[in-house]
């Protein structure tokens, strides 16, 4: 089986404007969640007044023209892709053999809603011609492809909060099929806007801990009350080990395998039996030529919702049995919030670094662990063994389950 390796990583997140800053802030147990200061929070009397905005705004990084031409979700994607591309040493001379497979959960929502506001206020003639190319969900993949002049296809993966992880699983498939030498994968999201906040709040999905934003995302804690909306993007450069070694690239870790399943149970609720999620873990491990016994670290989906955290535990118990109590689990959304379509990619970057640096990142805010979820939750950075085999899980509305297996080299 062809070995797939990670040779470059990039991210812009609520914890930092690049991978290194985000990772170090995570290890220092910082939170990226803050009260929102925009006027619209009060204007619309939003029930939730905080979120995880990117630590370094895109306007501080990109050219003004890039800001004007790209939806915020694509802006963040380009920032992360440039970092990853540079980190990988700008691999591959044959741009037709470099493929983009990139994720978003929602797409150019800010552009869409801003344009609608303009149209309602000023009429159809004031709607700008760039509106459609900025709002289309493939805009981020297209922006990366255009920015890096890659011509091996620019695909978009959309499966709600599983999107980012699914994109990485897709990338492994593309490389094993031999249709590309290098794949730029990952995901982005930027929908910190009153409408999605109101909509997520309407379904009681969000934490309402308005007086303690940094303490709101608390996976596995008995007092968890919902997820915290985050924004950001993360990118991984994957290539075959052969291709990476031929050009003398540094290798962070292997993406040993990946898998995607669907619940066919409910549009938003996870299968309480965790069957689809368990199958995704087992399929990903089989795809990697590994077994549950090999796994020694988990970056869980763990959004901090009362129901979701238990459903994931049920699935993990199904796969690992009582050994699950011995596997260190990190729930990094406790620090970053939930980046929706970008979340799996950011967590994969963290897990790649966990495998590379042999350290499991901490979970914040676990004051009183839910006794129905008896996991070994990592609350302080913890050393991992030399041969790390980790899984990173993501699950999305629609019953999407995606898992990737990350292995140290």
């Amino acid at each position, binding site marked *: 089986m062809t070995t797939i390796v990670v040779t470059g990583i990039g991210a812009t997140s609520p914890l930092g404007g690049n991978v290194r800053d985000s990772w170090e802030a995570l290890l220092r147990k910082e939170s990226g969640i803050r009260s929102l200061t925009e006027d619209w929070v009060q204007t619309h009397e939003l029930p939730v007044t905080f979120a995880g905005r990117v630590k370094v705004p895109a306007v501080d990084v990109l*050219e*003004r*023209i890039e800001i*004007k031409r790209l939806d915020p979700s694509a802006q963040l994607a380009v920032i992360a892709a440039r970092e990853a591309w540079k980190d990988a040493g700008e691999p591959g001379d044959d741009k037709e053999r470099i493929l983009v497979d990139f994720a978003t959960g929602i797409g150019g929502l800010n552009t869409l809603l801003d344009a609608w506001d303009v149209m309602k206020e*000023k009429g159809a*003639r*004031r*709607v*700008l*011609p*760039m509106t459609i*190319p900025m709002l289309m969900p493939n805009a981020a993949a297209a922006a990366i492809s255009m920015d890096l002049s890659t011509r091996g296809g620019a695909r978009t993966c959309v499966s709600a909060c599983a999107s980012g992880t699914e994109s990485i699983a897709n990338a492994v498939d593309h490389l094993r099929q031999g249709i590309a030498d290098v794949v730029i994968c990952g995901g982005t999201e930027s929908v910190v806007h009153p409408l999605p906040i109101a909509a997520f709040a309407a379904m009681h999905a969000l934490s309402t801990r308005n007086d303690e934003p940094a303490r709101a995302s608390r996976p596995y804690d008995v007092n968890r009350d919902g997820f915290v909306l985050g924004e950001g993007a993360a990118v991984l450069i994957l290539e075959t080990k052969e291709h990476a070694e031929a050009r003398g690239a540094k290798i962070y870790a292997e993406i040993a395998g990946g898998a995607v399943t669907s619940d066919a149970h409910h549009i938003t609720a996870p299968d309480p039996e965790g069957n689809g999620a368990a199958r995704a873990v087992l399929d990903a491990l089989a795809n990697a030529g590994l077994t549950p016994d090999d796994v020694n670290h988990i970056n869980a989906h763990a959004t901090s919702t009362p129901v979701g955290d238990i459903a994931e535990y049920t699935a993990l118990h199904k796969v690992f049995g009582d050994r699950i109590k011995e596997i260190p689990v990190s729930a990094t959304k406790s620090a970053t919030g939930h980046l929706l379509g970008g979340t799996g990619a950011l967590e994969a970057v963290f897990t790649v670094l966990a495998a590379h640096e042999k350290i499991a990142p901490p979970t914040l805010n676990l004051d009183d662990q839910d006794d129905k979820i008896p996991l070994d939750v990592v609350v302080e950075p913890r050393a991992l063994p030399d041969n790390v085999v980790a899984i990173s899980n993501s699950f999305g509305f629609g019953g999407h389950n995606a898992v990737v297996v990350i292995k140290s080299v």
Partner: protein
Amino acid sequence: MAHSKDEVLAGLAALVNDETGVPAENVVFGKSFADDLDIDSISMMTIVVNAEEEFGVKIPDDKVSELVTVDDAVNFIVSAQA
């Protein structure tokens, strides 16, 4: 209030700069939007939408293709204000 020709030129140059990054001082009489300033059609449409708002005029869609040079645009806007 009607804008003078120089005011329209200055305002248009600012809109061009804002949309495309072309320096405002390059937007002068005698220049062609496409050939000299390298402005593509979608940017031109954006500039037109913004110019309508800035100068309080209507630039019909069938007129836009006739606005080849800076002179064409400034003259059209000045006359449309009248």
